[in-house]
Protein backbone atom coordinates (compact mmCIF):
# COMPACT_ATOMS: atom_id res chain seq x y z
CA UNK A 1 0.00 0.00 0.00
CA UNK A 2 1.56 3.30 -1.03
CA UNK A 3 0.36 6.90 -0.81
CA UNK A 4 1.40 7.40 -4.44
CA UNK A 5 -0.82 4.58 -5.70
CA UNK A 6 -3.81 5.94 -3.75
CA UNK A 7 -3.22 9.44 -5.10
CA UNK A 8 -2.93 8.08 -8.63
CA UNK A 9 -6.41 6.57 -8.35
CA UNK A 10 -7.82 9.88 -7.08
CA UNK A 11 -6.16 11.63 -10.05
CA UNK A 12 -8.15 9.28 -12.27
CA UNK A 13 -11.47 10.30 -10.79
CA UNK A 14 -12.07 8.19 -7.68
CA UNK A 15 -14.14 10.07 -5.11
CA UNK A 16 -12.37 8.26 -2.29
CA UNK A 17 -9.98 5.38 -1.78
CA UNK A 18 -9.75 2.22 0.28
CA UNK A 19 -6.24 1.14 1.23
CA UNK A 20 -5.00 -2.38 0.74
CA UNK A 21 -5.71 -4.32 3.90
CA UNK A 22 -3.21 -3.45 6.61
CA UNK A 23 -1.82 -6.16 8.92
CA UNK A 24 -0.21 -5.67 12.31
CA UNK A 25 3.00 -7.28 11.08
CA UNK A 26 4.52 -7.89 7.68
CA UNK A 27 2.48 -10.40 5.70
CA UNK A 28 3.80 -12.22 2.66
CA UNK A 29 1.18 -12.76 -0.03
CA UNK A 30 0.86 -15.78 -2.28
CA UNK A 31 3.37 -16.72 -4.97
CA UNK A 32 2.60 -16.09 -8.65
CA UNK A 33 0.40 -16.57 -10.60
CA UNK A 34 -1.92 -14.51 -8.41
CA UNK A 35 -4.45 -13.47 -11.02
CA UNK A 36 -6.22 -14.85 -14.07
CA UNK A 37 -8.91 -13.05 -15.98
CA UNK A 38 -11.28 -13.68 -18.85
CA UNK A 39 -14.13 -11.70 -20.30
CA UNK A 40 -16.49 -12.72 -17.49
CA UNK A 41 -14.52 -12.79 -14.28
CA UNK A 42 -11.22 -12.45 -12.49
CA UNK A 43 -9.80 -14.98 -10.07
CA UNK A 44 -7.31 -13.55 -7.61
CA UNK A 45 -5.22 -14.93 -4.82
CA UNK A 46 -2.83 -12.07 -4.21
CA UNK A 47 -2.99 -13.08 -0.55
CA UNK A 48 -3.00 -9.63 1.07
CA UNK A 49 0.73 -8.85 1.00
CA UNK A 50 1.56 -5.93 3.28
CA UNK A 51 4.56 -4.47 5.04
CA UNK A 52 2.67 -4.11 8.33
CA UNK A 53 1.25 -1.22 10.36
CA UNK A 54 4.55 0.57 10.98
CA UNK A 55 5.19 0.97 7.24
CA UNK A 56 1.53 1.72 6.58
CA UNK A 57 1.79 4.64 9.02
CA UNK A 58 4.44 6.28 6.84
CA UNK A 59 2.39 5.86 3.67
CA UNK A 60 -0.86 6.92 5.33
CA UNK A 61 0.69 10.06 6.76
CA UNK A 62 2.05 10.91 3.30
CA UNK A 63 -1.48 10.50 1.95
CA UNK A 64 -3.04 12.52 4.78
CA UNK A 65 -0.79 15.53 4.06
CA UNK A 66 -2.94 17.52 1.63
CA UNK A 67 -5.36 14.59 1.54
CA UNK A 68 -6.84 14.62 -1.97
CA UNK A 69 -9.97 12.55 -1.16
CA UNK A 70 -11.52 10.64 1.76
CA UNK A 71 -9.74 7.43 2.71
CA UNK A 72 -11.01 4.16 4.12
CA UNK A 73 -8.29 2.26 5.96
CA UNK A 74 -8.82 -1.46 5.53
CA UNK A 75 -7.51 -3.68 8.31
CA UNK A 76 -7.08 -7.43 8.47
CA UNK A 77 -5.87 -9.94 11.05
CA UNK A 78 -5.89 -13.65 11.73
CA UNK A 79 -6.57 -13.27 15.45
CA UNK A 80 -8.98 -11.11 17.43
CA UNK A 81 -6.15 -9.58 19.54
CA UNK A 82 -4.35 -8.46 16.41
CA UNK A 83 -7.53 -6.79 15.14
CA UNK A 84 -7.65 -4.78 18.39
CA UNK A 85 -4.03 -3.67 18.05
CA UNK A 86 -4.14 -2.79 14.36
CA UNK A 87 -7.47 -0.97 14.84
CA UNK A 88 -6.02 1.10 17.68
CA UNK A 89 -2.97 2.05 15.65
CA UNK A 90 -4.84 2.76 12.41
CA UNK A 91 -7.31 4.90 14.34
CA UNK A 92 -4.48 7.32 15.25
CA UNK A 93 -3.95 7.98 11.53
CA UNK A 94 -7.44 9.51 11.33
CA UNK A 95 -8.83 7.77 8.25
CA UNK A 96 -12.43 8.70 7.39
CA UNK A 97 -13.62 5.12 7.85
CA UNK A 98 -12.04 1.90 9.11
CA UNK A 99 -13.01 -1.13 7.06
CA UNK A 100 -12.68 -4.43 8.87
CA UNK A 101 -11.81 -7.09 6.32
CA UNK A 102 -13.01 -10.38 7.78
CA UNK A 103 -13.92 -11.99 4.49
CA UNK A 104 -10.88 -12.61 2.27
CA UNK A 105 -11.49 -16.06 0.79
CA UNK A 106 -7.96 -16.79 -0.36
CA UNK A 107 -6.12 -16.89 2.95
CA UNK A 108 -8.14 -19.82 4.32
CA UNK A 109 -5.19 -22.20 4.28
CA UNK A 110 -3.42 -19.85 6.61
CA UNK A 111 -6.24 -18.48 8.75
CA UNK A 112 -9.08 -20.99 8.49
CA UNK A 113 -12.64 -20.03 7.64
CA UNK A 114 -13.05 -16.25 7.49
CA UNK A 115 -14.65 -14.58 10.52
CA UNK A 116 -17.33 -13.35 8.12
CA UNK A 117 -18.63 -16.91 7.75
CA UNK A 118 -19.96 -17.00 11.29
CA UNK A 119 -22.35 -14.60 12.99
CA UNK A 120 -20.60 -15.07 16.32
CA UNK A 121 -17.07 -14.49 14.96
CA UNK A 122 -18.12 -11.50 12.88
CA UNK A 123 -19.81 -9.87 15.89
CA UNK A 124 -16.83 -10.64 18.12
CA UNK A 125 -14.34 -8.95 15.77
CA UNK A 126 -16.69 -6.00 15.23
CA UNK A 127 -17.07 -5.33 18.94
CA UNK A 128 -13.31 -5.59 19.50
CA UNK A 129 -12.60 -3.03 16.79
CA UNK A 130 -15.51 -0.86 17.97
CA UNK A 131 -13.96 -0.55 21.43
CA UNK A 132 -10.69 0.66 19.96
CA UNK A 133 -11.90 3.61 17.89
CA UNK A 134 -14.41 6.40 17.50
CA UNK A 135 -13.89 6.46 13.74
CA UNK A 136 -16.81 4.95 11.77
CA UNK A 137 -16.38 1.19 11.45
CA UNK A 138 -17.55 -0.70 8.37
CA UNK A 139 -17.34 -4.48 8.24
CA UNK A 140 -16.61 -6.14 4.90
CA UNK A 141 -18.70 -9.25 4.48
CA UNK A 142 -18.44 -12.42 2.47
CA UNK A 143 -21.11 -13.54 0.00
CA UNK A 144 -20.08 -17.13 0.62
CA UNK A 145 -22.54 -17.70 3.43
CA UNK A 146 -26.05 -19.05 3.75
CA UNK A 147 -27.50 -15.79 5.05
CA UNK A 148 -25.50 -12.56 4.73
CA UNK A 149 -28.28 -10.52 6.35
CA UNK A 150 -27.97 -12.42 9.60
CA UNK A 151 -24.25 -11.67 9.70
CA UNK A 152 -24.74 -8.02 8.76
CA UNK A 153 -27.25 -7.68 11.57
CA UNK A 154 -24.88 -9.28 14.06
CA UNK A 155 -22.16 -6.78 13.07
CA UNK A 156 -24.49 -3.80 13.38
CA UNK A 157 -25.68 -5.03 16.77
CA UNK A 158 -22.03 -5.31 17.81
CA UNK A 159 -21.43 -1.68 16.92
CA UNK A 160 -20.64 -1.53 13.19
CA UNK A 161 -21.60 1.81 11.62
CA UNK A 162 -21.93 0.28 8.19
CA UNK A 163 -21.49 -2.80 6.05
CA UNK A 164 -19.35 -3.35 2.98
CA UNK A 165 -20.75 -6.01 0.66
CA UNK A 166 -19.40 -8.02 -0.95
CA UNK A 167 -15.91 -9.48 -0.86
CA UNK A 168 -14.97 -11.88 -3.65
CA UNK A 169 -17.06 -14.94 -4.37
CA UNK A 170 -16.08 -18.56 -4.02
CA UNK A 171 -13.21 -19.15 -3.85
CA UNK A 172 -13.02 -20.54 -7.35
CA UNK A 173 -10.47 -22.42 -9.40
CA UNK A 174 -9.21 -22.51 -12.99
CA UNK A 175 -7.35 -25.54 -14.36
CA UNK A 176 -4.96 -25.46 -17.30
CA UNK A 177 -5.74 -28.33 -19.66
CA UNK A 178 -2.20 -28.81 -21.02
CA UNK A 179 -0.48 -29.15 -17.67
CA UNK A 180 -3.58 -30.36 -15.78
CA UNK A 181 -2.69 -27.95 -12.98
CA UNK A 182 -4.67 -25.21 -11.24
CA UNK A 183 -3.36 -21.95 -12.71
CA UNK A 184 -3.22 -19.95 -9.49
CA UNK A 185 -0.27 -20.88 -7.29
CA UNK A 186 -2.69 -20.81 -4.36
CA UNK A 187 -4.93 -23.13 -6.43
CA UNK A 188 -8.03 -21.15 -5.41
CA UNK A 189 -8.85 -17.48 -5.57
CA UNK A 190 -11.70 -15.06 -5.01
CA UNK A 191 -13.96 -14.44 -7.99
CA UNK A 192 -14.62 -10.82 -8.96
CA UNK A 193 -15.59 -8.91 -12.08
CA UNK A 194 -18.72 -8.74 -14.23
CA UNK A 195 -19.92 -12.26 -13.35
CA UNK A 196 -20.42 -11.49 -9.66
CA UNK A 197 -22.49 -8.33 -10.03
CA UNK A 198 -25.89 -10.08 -9.62
CA UNK A 199 -24.66 -11.71 -6.41
CA UNK A 200 -23.43 -8.35 -5.08
CA UNK A 201 -26.65 -6.57 -6.06
CA UNK A 202 -28.75 -9.16 -4.27
CA UNK A 203 -26.60 -9.05 -1.12
CA UNK A 204 -26.84 -5.25 -0.93
CA UNK A 205 -30.57 -5.39 -1.64
CA UNK A 206 -31.17 -7.93 1.12
CA UNK A 207 -29.05 -6.07 3.67
CA UNK A 208 -30.68 -2.74 2.89
CA UNK A 209 -34.13 -4.25 3.13
CA UNK A 210 -33.41 -5.74 6.54
CA UNK A 211 -31.35 -2.84 7.89
CA UNK A 212 -32.59 0.31 6.12
CA UNK A 213 -30.80 2.61 8.57
CA UNK A 214 -27.37 1.10 7.92
CA UNK A 215 -25.06 2.66 5.32
CA UNK A 216 -23.72 0.13 2.82
CA UNK A 217 -20.64 0.20 0.63
CA UNK A 218 -21.83 -1.76 -2.40
CA UNK A 219 -19.05 -3.45 -4.32
CA UNK A 220 -18.76 -6.39 -6.70
CA UNK A 221 -18.76 -6.35 -10.48
CA UNK A 222 -19.24 -2.61 -10.92
CA UNK A 223 -17.81 -1.78 -14.34
CA UNK A 224 -19.94 1.11 -15.58
CA UNK A 225 -21.92 4.08 -14.33
CA UNK A 226 -25.10 2.11 -14.87
CA UNK A 227 -23.75 -0.72 -12.69
CA UNK A 228 -23.07 1.86 -9.96
CA UNK A 229 -26.62 3.26 -10.27
CA UNK A 230 -27.96 -0.29 -10.01
CA UNK A 231 -25.93 -0.80 -6.83
CA UNK A 232 -27.37 2.42 -5.36
CA UNK A 233 -30.91 1.37 -6.28
CA UNK A 234 -30.23 -1.87 -4.41
CA UNK A 235 -29.36 0.18 -1.34
CA UNK A 236 -25.70 1.19 -1.53
CA UNK A 237 -24.59 4.48 0.04
CA UNK A 238 -21.12 4.29 -1.48
CA UNK A 239 -20.02 2.22 -4.45
CA UNK A 240 -16.69 0.38 -4.55
CA UNK A 241 -14.76 -0.32 -7.74
CA UNK A 242 -11.78 -2.65 -8.08
CA UNK A 243 -11.67 -5.17 -10.87
CA UNK A 244 -12.89 -2.57 -13.38
CA UNK A 245 -9.28 -1.34 -13.38
CA UNK A 246 -8.52 -4.45 -15.43
CA UNK A 247 -11.41 -4.12 -17.87
CA UNK A 248 -11.31 -0.33 -18.34
CA UNK A 249 -7.89 0.62 -16.94
CA UNK A 250 -7.29 3.09 -14.12
CA UNK A 251 -9.37 5.69 -15.99
CA UNK A 252 -12.45 3.63 -15.01
CA UNK A 253 -13.11 5.77 -11.92
CA UNK A 254 -13.61 8.97 -13.86
CA UNK A 255 -15.51 7.16 -16.62
CA UNK A 256 -17.93 5.57 -14.17
CA UNK A 257 -18.57 8.94 -12.47
CA UNK A 258 -19.20 10.58 -15.83
CA UNK A 259 -21.59 7.82 -16.89
CA UNK A 260 -23.49 8.17 -13.61
CA UNK A 261 -23.91 11.89 -14.21
CA UNK A 262 -25.08 11.26 -17.78
CA UNK A 263 -27.64 8.70 -16.62
CA UNK A 264 -28.85 11.01 -13.88
CA UNK A 265 -29.28 13.92 -16.30
CA UNK A 266 -31.11 11.78 -18.85
CA UNK A 267 -33.51 10.65 -16.11
CA UNK A 268 -34.00 14.00 -14.39
CA UNK A 269 -32.31 12.93 -11.15
CA UNK A 270 -31.51 15.91 -8.92
CA UNK A 271 -29.67 14.10 -6.12
CA UNK A 272 -27.98 10.73 -6.32
CA UNK A 273 -29.22 9.99 -2.80
CA UNK A 274 -32.80 10.04 -4.13
CA UNK A 275 -32.03 6.79 -5.93
CA UNK A 276 -30.79 4.92 -2.90
CA UNK A 277 -32.72 1.75 -2.24
CA UNK A 278 -35.45 2.64 -4.73
CA UNK A 279 -35.52 -0.96 -5.95
CA UNK A 280 -36.35 -2.16 -2.44
CA UNK A 281 -40.09 -1.98 -1.95
CA UNK A 282 -42.37 -3.52 0.60
Amino acid sequence: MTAASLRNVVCHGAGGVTTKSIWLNEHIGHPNPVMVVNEHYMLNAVGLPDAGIEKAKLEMSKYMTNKPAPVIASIVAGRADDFAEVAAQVSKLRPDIIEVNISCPNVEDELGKPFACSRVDAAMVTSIVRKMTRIPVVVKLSPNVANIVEIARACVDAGADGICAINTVGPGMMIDLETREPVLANKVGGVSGPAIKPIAIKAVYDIHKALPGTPIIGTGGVMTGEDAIEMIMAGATLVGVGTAVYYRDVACFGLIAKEMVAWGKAHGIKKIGDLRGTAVKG
Partner: protein
Amino acid sequence: MRDVPKVIKIKKVIVETPFVKTFIFEHKLGAQPGQFVNLWLPRIDEKPMSVAYCDAKEFWVTMFAVGPFSKKMHTLKAGDLVGVRGPYGHGFSFKKGQRLVMMAGGYGAAPLYNLTVQAVKAGCKIDFVIGARSKEHLLYLSRIKKLKNVKLHITTDDGSVGLKGYNTQVLEKLLAEVGGKMPAPPVKGARGAKAGKSGAKGAVKSKKIDCIYTCGPEMMMKKISDMCWSAKVSAQISIERYMKCGFGVCGQCCVDESGERMCTEGPVVDNARARKITEFGKYHRDSVGKISPF
Protein backbone atom coordinates in the same frame (compact mmCIF):
# COMPACT_ATOMS: atom_id res chain seq x y z
CA MET B 1 -10.10 -9.48 -22.45
CA ARG B 2 -8.28 -12.55 -21.42
CA ASP B 3 -5.18 -12.94 -19.30
CA VAL B 4 -4.66 -16.61 -18.77
CA PRO B 5 -1.33 -18.36 -19.40
CA LYS B 6 -1.23 -20.20 -22.71
CA VAL B 7 0.89 -23.30 -22.31
CA ILE B 8 3.23 -23.86 -25.25
CA LYS B 9 6.26 -25.95 -26.09
CA ILE B 10 9.81 -24.64 -26.06
CA LYS B 11 11.00 -24.81 -29.68
CA LYS B 12 14.71 -24.51 -29.00
CA VAL B 13 17.17 -23.72 -26.21
CA ILE B 14 20.40 -21.85 -26.97
CA VAL B 15 23.27 -21.87 -24.47
CA GLU B 16 24.60 -18.31 -24.48
CA THR B 17 27.13 -18.45 -21.64
CA PRO B 18 27.66 -20.84 -18.72
CA PHE B 19 24.97 -18.86 -16.82
CA VAL B 20 22.61 -17.78 -19.57
CA LYS B 21 20.24 -19.55 -21.92
CA THR B 22 17.86 -18.30 -24.59
CA PHE B 23 14.48 -20.01 -24.94
CA ILE B 24 12.73 -19.83 -28.29
CA PHE B 25 8.95 -20.22 -28.45
CA GLU B 26 6.97 -20.71 -31.64
CA HIS B 27 4.13 -18.34 -30.86
CA LYS B 28 2.80 -15.19 -32.43
CA LEU B 29 3.33 -12.93 -29.44
CA GLY B 30 3.27 -9.57 -31.21
CA ALA B 31 5.53 -7.84 -28.65
CA GLN B 32 7.00 -4.40 -29.21
CA PRO B 33 10.63 -4.00 -28.12
CA GLY B 34 10.78 -3.26 -24.39
CA GLN B 35 7.59 -5.16 -23.58
CA PHE B 36 7.65 -8.26 -21.40
CA VAL B 37 5.92 -11.62 -21.00
CA ASN B 38 4.95 -13.56 -17.91
CA LEU B 39 6.34 -17.10 -18.03
CA TRP B 40 4.72 -19.74 -15.83
CA LEU B 41 6.04 -23.04 -14.54
CA PRO B 42 3.31 -24.79 -12.52
CA ARG B 43 4.21 -25.22 -8.83
CA ILE B 44 7.33 -23.10 -9.29
CA ASP B 45 6.44 -19.49 -10.11
CA GLU B 46 5.37 -17.04 -12.77
CA LYS B 47 7.90 -14.34 -13.65
CA PRO B 48 7.99 -11.26 -15.88
CA MET B 49 10.72 -11.61 -18.52
CA SER B 50 11.97 -9.24 -21.22
CA VAL B 51 11.41 -10.26 -24.81
CA ALA B 52 14.80 -10.50 -26.52
CA TYR B 53 13.45 -11.00 -30.01
CA CYS B 54 10.03 -11.23 -31.62
CA ASP B 55 8.78 -11.72 -35.16
CA ALA B 56 5.61 -13.04 -36.76
CA LYS B 57 6.53 -16.66 -35.94
CA GLU B 58 8.50 -16.80 -32.73
CA PHE B 59 9.83 -14.97 -29.72
CA TRP B 60 12.91 -15.37 -27.53
CA VAL B 61 13.54 -14.97 -23.83
CA THR B 62 17.09 -14.85 -22.52
CA MET B 63 17.55 -15.77 -18.90
CA PHE B 64 20.28 -15.81 -16.25
CA ALA B 65 19.97 -18.77 -13.86
CA VAL B 66 19.61 -16.86 -10.61
CA GLY B 67 16.58 -18.04 -8.59
CA PRO B 68 14.30 -21.10 -8.33
CA PHE B 69 12.32 -20.15 -11.44
CA SER B 70 15.22 -19.43 -13.80
CA LYS B 71 17.20 -22.41 -12.47
CA LYS B 72 14.25 -24.66 -13.26
CA MET B 73 13.94 -23.05 -16.69
CA HIS B 74 17.59 -23.90 -17.32
CA THR B 75 16.81 -27.62 -16.89
CA LEU B 76 14.16 -27.52 -19.63
CA LYS B 77 14.72 -28.57 -23.23
CA ALA B 78 12.95 -28.35 -26.57
CA GLY B 79 9.42 -29.76 -26.31
CA ASP B 80 8.96 -28.93 -22.62
CA LEU B 81 5.91 -26.85 -21.67
CA VAL B 82 5.88 -23.29 -20.36
CA GLY B 83 2.89 -21.00 -19.75
CA VAL B 84 3.07 -17.67 -21.55
CA ARG B 85 0.95 -14.56 -21.23
CA GLY B 86 1.43 -11.10 -22.54
CA PRO B 87 2.94 -9.10 -24.09
CA TYR B 88 2.65 -6.56 -21.30
CA GLY B 89 3.77 -3.03 -20.64
CA HIS B 90 4.76 0.03 -22.58
CA GLY B 91 7.77 -0.50 -24.85
CA PHE B 92 10.41 1.53 -26.68
CA SER B 93 9.58 3.79 -29.62
CA PHE B 94 11.61 5.32 -32.46
CA LYS B 95 11.10 6.87 -35.88
CA LYS B 96 12.37 5.80 -39.30
CA GLY B 97 15.92 6.76 -40.23
CA GLN B 98 16.97 8.05 -36.80
CA ARG B 99 20.36 7.88 -35.19
CA LEU B 100 20.06 5.95 -31.95
CA VAL B 101 22.33 4.84 -29.11
CA MET B 102 21.69 1.68 -27.09
CA MET B 103 23.16 1.66 -23.58
CA ALA B 104 23.05 -1.90 -22.31
CA GLY B 105 24.24 -2.94 -18.87
CA GLY B 106 24.85 -6.68 -18.53
CA TYR B 107 21.79 -8.69 -19.44
CA GLY B 108 19.96 -5.51 -20.41
CA ALA B 109 21.45 -6.23 -23.84
CA ALA B 110 18.64 -8.67 -24.67
CA PRO B 111 15.68 -6.25 -24.91
CA LEU B 112 17.88 -3.66 -26.60
CA TYR B 113 18.85 -6.25 -29.20
CA ASN B 114 15.15 -6.66 -30.06
CA LEU B 115 14.83 -2.87 -30.37
CA THR B 116 17.97 -2.68 -32.52
CA VAL B 117 16.72 -5.33 -34.95
CA GLN B 118 13.45 -3.44 -35.42
CA ALA B 119 15.16 -0.03 -35.69
CA VAL B 120 17.67 -1.26 -38.27
CA LYS B 121 14.76 -2.52 -40.38
CA ALA B 122 13.37 1.01 -40.21
CA GLY B 123 16.62 2.48 -41.54
CA CYS B 124 18.06 3.69 -38.25
CA LYS B 125 21.78 3.98 -37.57
CA ILE B 126 22.83 2.70 -34.19
CA ASP B 127 25.68 2.77 -31.71
CA PHE B 128 25.24 -0.24 -29.45
CA VAL B 129 27.20 0.23 -26.24
CA ILE B 130 27.34 -2.81 -24.00
CA GLY B 131 28.98 -2.94 -20.62
CA ALA B 132 29.37 -5.90 -18.31
CA ARG B 133 31.36 -7.05 -15.32
CA SER B 134 33.57 -9.26 -17.45
CA LYS B 135 33.80 -11.13 -20.74
CA GLU B 136 31.61 -14.07 -19.70
CA HIS B 137 28.70 -11.78 -18.84
CA LEU B 138 28.50 -10.20 -22.27
CA LEU B 139 25.52 -11.28 -24.32
CA TYR B 140 24.44 -11.15 -27.94
CA LEU B 141 27.76 -9.85 -29.30
CA SER B 142 27.85 -12.01 -32.42
CA ARG B 143 24.20 -11.26 -33.21
CA ILE B 144 24.72 -7.53 -32.85
CA LYS B 145 27.86 -7.65 -35.01
CA LYS B 146 25.83 -9.20 -37.84
CA LEU B 147 23.44 -6.27 -38.02
CA LYS B 148 23.97 -3.60 -40.65
CA ASN B 149 24.35 0.05 -39.66
CA VAL B 150 25.23 -0.90 -36.11
CA LYS B 151 28.52 -0.04 -34.42
CA LEU B 152 29.24 -2.16 -31.37
CA HIS B 153 31.19 -0.74 -28.42
CA ILE B 154 32.19 -3.03 -25.57
CA THR B 155 33.32 -2.16 -22.05
CA THR B 156 34.07 -4.48 -19.15
CA ASP B 157 34.71 -3.58 -15.53
CA ASP B 158 37.78 -5.84 -15.48
CA GLY B 159 39.01 -5.08 -19.00
CA SER B 160 38.75 -8.75 -20.04
CA VAL B 161 37.34 -7.59 -23.37
CA GLY B 162 36.79 -4.20 -24.97
CA LEU B 163 37.55 -1.10 -22.97
CA LYS B 164 38.21 -1.32 -19.28
CA GLY B 165 35.65 0.84 -17.57
CA TYR B 166 31.99 1.71 -17.82
CA ASN B 167 29.74 2.05 -20.84
CA THR B 168 28.89 5.59 -19.71
CA GLN B 169 32.44 6.59 -20.66
CA VAL B 170 31.63 5.69 -24.26
CA LEU B 171 28.41 7.66 -24.03
CA GLU B 172 30.33 10.73 -22.84
CA LYS B 173 32.45 10.54 -25.95
CA LEU B 174 29.46 10.00 -28.26
CA LEU B 175 27.65 12.97 -26.75
CA ALA B 176 30.76 15.13 -26.99
CA GLU B 177 31.08 14.30 -30.70
CA VAL B 178 27.61 15.56 -31.45
CA GLY B 179 28.09 18.66 -29.33
CA GLY B 180 26.00 17.68 -26.35
CA LYS B 181 26.82 19.87 -23.37
CA MET B 182 28.57 17.52 -21.05
CA PRO B 183 30.13 18.14 -17.71
CA ALA B 184 33.85 17.25 -17.52
CA PRO B 185 34.22 13.46 -17.45
CA PRO B 186 34.98 12.13 -13.98
CA VAL B 187 38.59 11.03 -13.52
CA LYS B 188 38.72 7.44 -12.40
CA GLY B 189 42.36 6.58 -12.74
CA ALA B 190 43.45 4.45 -15.66
CA ARG B 191 39.92 3.14 -16.34
CA GLY B 192 38.43 6.48 -17.24
CA ALA B 193 41.43 7.71 -19.16
CA LYS B 194 41.62 4.58 -21.27
CA ALA B 195 37.98 4.56 -22.22
CA GLY B 196 38.02 8.29 -22.75
CA LYS B 197 40.74 8.11 -25.37
CA SER B 198 39.32 5.52 -27.66
CA GLY B 199 35.77 4.99 -26.39
CA ALA B 200 33.79 6.01 -29.44
CA LYS B 201 36.25 5.20 -32.17
CA GLY B 202 34.42 4.39 -35.37
CA ALA B 203 31.06 5.53 -34.04
CA VAL B 204 28.17 5.89 -36.46
CA LYS B 205 28.68 9.31 -38.06
CA SER B 206 25.73 11.63 -37.89
CA LYS B 207 24.92 15.19 -37.00
CA LYS B 208 22.98 14.43 -33.88
CA ILE B 209 21.70 11.64 -31.66
CA ASP B 210 17.91 11.35 -31.81
CA CYS B 211 17.44 9.11 -28.83
CA ILE B 212 19.34 7.06 -26.26
CA TYR B 213 17.86 3.84 -24.90
CA THR B 214 18.94 2.10 -21.75
CA CYS B 215 18.29 -1.14 -19.94
CA GLY B 216 20.43 -2.51 -17.13
CA PRO B 217 21.31 -1.85 -13.49
CA GLU B 218 19.35 1.11 -12.16
CA MET B 219 22.35 3.13 -10.96
CA MET B 220 23.82 2.93 -14.46
CA MET B 221 20.50 4.03 -15.96
CA LYS B 222 20.28 6.91 -13.47
CA LYS B 223 23.73 8.10 -14.56
CA ILE B 224 22.67 7.85 -18.22
CA SER B 225 19.45 9.71 -17.45
CA ASP B 226 21.47 12.55 -15.90
CA MET B 227 23.92 12.65 -18.80
CA CYS B 228 21.16 12.75 -21.42
CA TRP B 229 19.28 15.40 -19.47
CA SER B 230 22.22 17.77 -19.25
CA ALA B 231 23.12 17.10 -22.90
CA LYS B 232 19.49 17.75 -23.89
CA VAL B 233 19.25 14.46 -25.77
CA SER B 234 16.07 12.35 -25.56
CA ALA B 235 16.25 9.08 -23.69
CA GLN B 236 14.01 6.12 -22.96
CA ILE B 237 14.62 4.06 -19.84
CA SER B 238 13.40 0.60 -18.89
CA ILE B 239 12.57 0.72 -15.18
CA GLU B 240 12.10 -2.65 -13.54
CA ARG B 241 10.00 -3.02 -10.42
CA TYR B 242 8.73 -6.03 -8.47
CA MET B 243 5.56 -7.13 -10.24
CA LYS B 244 2.79 -9.51 -9.32
CA CYS B 245 -0.11 -9.48 -11.78
CA GLY B 246 1.76 -7.78 -14.68
CA PHE B 247 -1.32 -6.05 -16.06
CA GLY B 248 -2.04 -3.07 -13.90
CA VAL B 249 -4.42 -4.32 -11.22
CA CYS B 250 -2.55 -5.32 -8.08
CA GLY B 251 -0.62 -2.08 -7.51
CA GLN B 252 2.59 -3.85 -6.57
CA CYS B 253 4.79 -1.94 -9.03
CA CYS B 254 3.48 1.61 -8.45
CA VAL B 255 6.33 4.10 -8.14
CA ASP B 256 6.71 7.17 -5.93
CA GLU B 257 5.51 9.90 -6.24
CA SER B 258 3.58 9.57 -9.48
CA GLY B 259 1.91 6.28 -8.54
CA GLU B 260 2.33 5.05 -12.12
CA ARG B 261 2.37 1.28 -12.60
CA MET B 262 5.64 0.11 -14.12
CA CYS B 263 3.91 -2.96 -15.59
CA THR B 264 1.50 -0.76 -17.55
CA GLU B 265 2.70 2.86 -17.92
CA GLY B 266 6.25 1.35 -17.87
CA PRO B 267 8.57 -0.43 -17.91
CA VAL B 268 9.84 1.95 -20.60
CA VAL B 269 9.41 5.62 -19.72
CA ASP B 270 10.91 8.64 -21.41
CA ASN B 271 13.54 10.54 -19.50
CA ALA B 272 11.32 13.49 -18.57
CA ARG B 273 8.93 11.05 -16.95
CA ALA B 274 11.71 9.04 -15.31
CA ARG B 275 12.94 12.22 -13.66
CA LYS B 276 9.53 12.71 -12.06
CA ILE B 277 9.77 9.25 -10.53
CA THR B 278 11.35 10.34 -7.26
CA GLU B 279 12.43 6.81 -6.33
CA PHE B 280 14.31 6.28 -9.62
CA GLY B 281 17.95 5.61 -8.81
CA LYS B 282 17.20 5.68 -5.08
CA TYR B 283 15.04 2.74 -4.01
CA HIS B 284 12.56 0.08 -5.03
CA ARG B 285 10.04 -2.00 -3.09
CA ASP B 286 10.01 -5.71 -2.25
CA SER B 287 7.13 -8.20 -2.47
CA VAL B 288 5.30 -6.74 0.53
CA GLY B 289 5.99 -3.13 -0.46
CA LYS B 290 8.92 -2.45 1.88
CA ILE B 291 11.45 0.09 0.65
CA SER B 292 14.86 -1.23 -0.30
CA PRO B 293 17.59 1.23 -1.36
CA PHE B 294 19.79 0.56 -4.39
